[in-house]
């Protein structure tokens, strides 16, 4: 056999005496066990009740019980002087259950046929928070703040405290842990109230590399100290600031440290008090700044963009060469260059150089040659002139053919009409003539 699950409690319902609205029978003993979900209580409202009236509802009666406690015993008719009629007002149950017992004796009055009762019931929310504290010494439902909800309740804690696992009592909170947002606010437990004794709280501010943390103590700063000639000594209460690779620093006294630039992306704060003395506490805002990369400097024959006064982590810069120059990196020409400021305060690529371009050797000229008029090594803006091997060849057209190395790395004629120089042979002009002087 398998036990059937309990039926889901209803949120509302109706209950009537047997045969209602017909007169009920004698010798009845009927019972209804009503229930609604936990966290609710039942309210029952009688729409009609007509039960033989008697003193103390001795003969016929409808009895309402909650955990064997009688909430009421009803009989009679509405507005009648006899009996005990519930009226039309809702009757609440202390909990989510209600038992109705309808009991009749062995005879009914002949003149009036009583029809019994008809009632509606519904679940209503219980305000657990307003309930009195239990007498068993277990304490209040919530140690600090009780929030009533429909069908239930929640406990909450005041600022500086956190809810314990029992979900009802509160414990002092350090508010510690890891703070990885780029800005934030920290404070001592219970701040601005003095914390209880023997506090040991740890706060770690850790943001991603490339950012540095700056602490700014605001408002009250009061940590018990012993003043010495060298300054406050922190023998019992202290706030210790630890930055990686540096000596920890203990802070105490009544004077705020103000702003502390850590130059680190990680800072650990340990707040310690012993079980004596008094420290009112502290609070701080922290902010972060991106690390700075060195100024890229001026590029020879090129420029860096964008031009900023300072360059920070994740900033990009681009390098462009002036016209007639090309980007060179590790002996190789590159089409474009950009570099990013890294978290280690260095550019992820070293800056390239701008080298002057060259047009390579000019096209050779058959039966001629080329001479440099200006520039050298075929560099940008070099000017060359073509010539033919005279006197045996001459340039077609007979005009000077001058080419300039342009920014597109091509030799371009100064005169756009010329496509390419050509040497044509010189005819009929021997280098030696036959002379006859004898007459």
């Amino acid at each position: 056999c398998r036990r059937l699950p309990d039926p889901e409690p209803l949120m509302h319902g109706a209950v009537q005496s047997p045969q209602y609205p017909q007169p009920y029978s004698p010798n009845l003993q009927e019972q209804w066990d009503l229930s609604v979900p936990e966290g609710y209580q039942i309210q029952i409202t009688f729409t009609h009740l007509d039960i033989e009236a008697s003193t103390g509802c001795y003969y016929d009666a409808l009895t309402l019980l909650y955990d064997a406690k009688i909430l009421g015993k009803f009989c009679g008719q509405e507005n009648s002087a006899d009996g005990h009629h519930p009226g039309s007002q809702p009757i609440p149950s202390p909990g989510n259950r209600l038992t109705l017992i309808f009991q009749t004796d062995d005879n009914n009055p002949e003149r009036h046929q009583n029809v019994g009762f008809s009632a509606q019931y519904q679940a209503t929310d219980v305000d657990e928070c307003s309930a009195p504290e239990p007498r068993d010494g277990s304490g209040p439902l919530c140690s600090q703040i009780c929030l009533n909800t429909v069908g239930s309740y929640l406990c909450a804690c005041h600022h500086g405290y956190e809810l314990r696992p029992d979900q009802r009592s509160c414990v002092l909170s350090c508010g510690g842990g890891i703070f990885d947002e780029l800005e934030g606010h920290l404070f001592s437990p219970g701040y601005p109230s003095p914390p209880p004794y023997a506090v040991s709280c740890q706060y770690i501010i850790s943001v991603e590399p490339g950012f540095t943390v700056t602490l700014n103590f605001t408002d009250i700063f009061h940590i018990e100290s012993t003043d010495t000639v060298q300054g406050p000594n922190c023998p019992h209460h202290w706030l210790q600031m630890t930055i990686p690779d540096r000596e920890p620093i203990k802070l105490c006294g009544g004077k705020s440290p103000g702003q502390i630039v850590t130059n680190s992306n990680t800072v650990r704060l340990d707040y310690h008090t012993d079980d004596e003395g008094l420290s009112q506490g502290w609070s701080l805002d922290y902010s972060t700044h991106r690390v700075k990369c060195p100024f890229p400097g001026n590029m020879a024959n090129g420029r860096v963009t964008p031009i900023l006064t300072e360059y920070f982590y994740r900033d990009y810069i681009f390098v462009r060469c002036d016209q007639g120059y090309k980007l060179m990196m590790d002996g190789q020409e590159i089409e474009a260059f950009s570099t990013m400021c890294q978290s280690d305060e260095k550019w992820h690529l070293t800056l390239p150089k701008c080298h002057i371009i060259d047009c390579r050797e000019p096209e050779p000229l058959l039966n001629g040659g080329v001479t440099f008029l200006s520039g050298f090594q075929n560099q940008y803006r070099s000017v060359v002139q073509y010539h033919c091997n005279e006197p045996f060849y001459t340039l077609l057209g007979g005009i000077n053919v001058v080419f300039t190395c342009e920014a597109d790395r091509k030799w371009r004629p100064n005169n756009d009409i010329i496509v390419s120089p050509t040497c044509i042979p010189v005819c009929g002009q021997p280098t030696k003539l036959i002379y006859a002087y004898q007459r």
Partner: protein
Amino acid sequence: IIGGSETPDYAIPWQVLLSRNGQRGGGMVIGDRWIMTAAHVVVVMGNPVSKETIRIYMGLTDVNIRLGSPVLASSVHVHPEYNNSNSVNFNHDIALIKMQDSVTFSSSIMPICLPAAGATYINGMMGLVSGFGITEIDDRRILTNKMNYVHLPVVTQETCSNSITLLKRTRNGVPSLTENMFCAGVPEGGKDSCQGDSGGPYSLREDGRFWAAGIVSWGIDCGKQGTYGVYTRVANYIDWINKTMQEN
């Protein structure tokens, strides 16, 4: 060359020596891959000789000293109207030879200019004819290995025609003079081109440039009184020359 002189180096750098089966002929450089000559130099018994048999020498004035390796022909182009199977019709005596390799010009090898279209041949104008053909030493005709040249004036068509007509009365098989020919020489004789000079240049000088007025073609004897050398009138063939070179 009859009655001429040995040519100094670099004086006639367009002169070409053609050799075909031991026969000498002349030619002239007109381009870095083109030689112009007489058709009868490259046509034997009415048939063009094979290009492989033609040897081309340029840039020399003494065959003995600087013969060197010949340049080879890649194609031979005879004027399409040349028809001299009986050796009496020298009309259209012109041919072009294309060389396998181009030539770089220098003092020793230089092209001669082609005549302008409509160039005129003025009577009495002195021209320069040259070649490696027969010469005359002590009244004996010998084949020389040195380039010779001689200056000869242009003769009117009428004078030349009359001399040929006169000769035709006493000789058989004398070729006829056509408008595609002109004559050069002196009436008293003693100066002329001769066998072996055929195909060589007869040049006129104008504005400091020599131009190819004629191609040594034919004549009755050499240097004889009352006879003239007959030359192909190059100016009549400019269109054919340009067309042939462009198409090839």
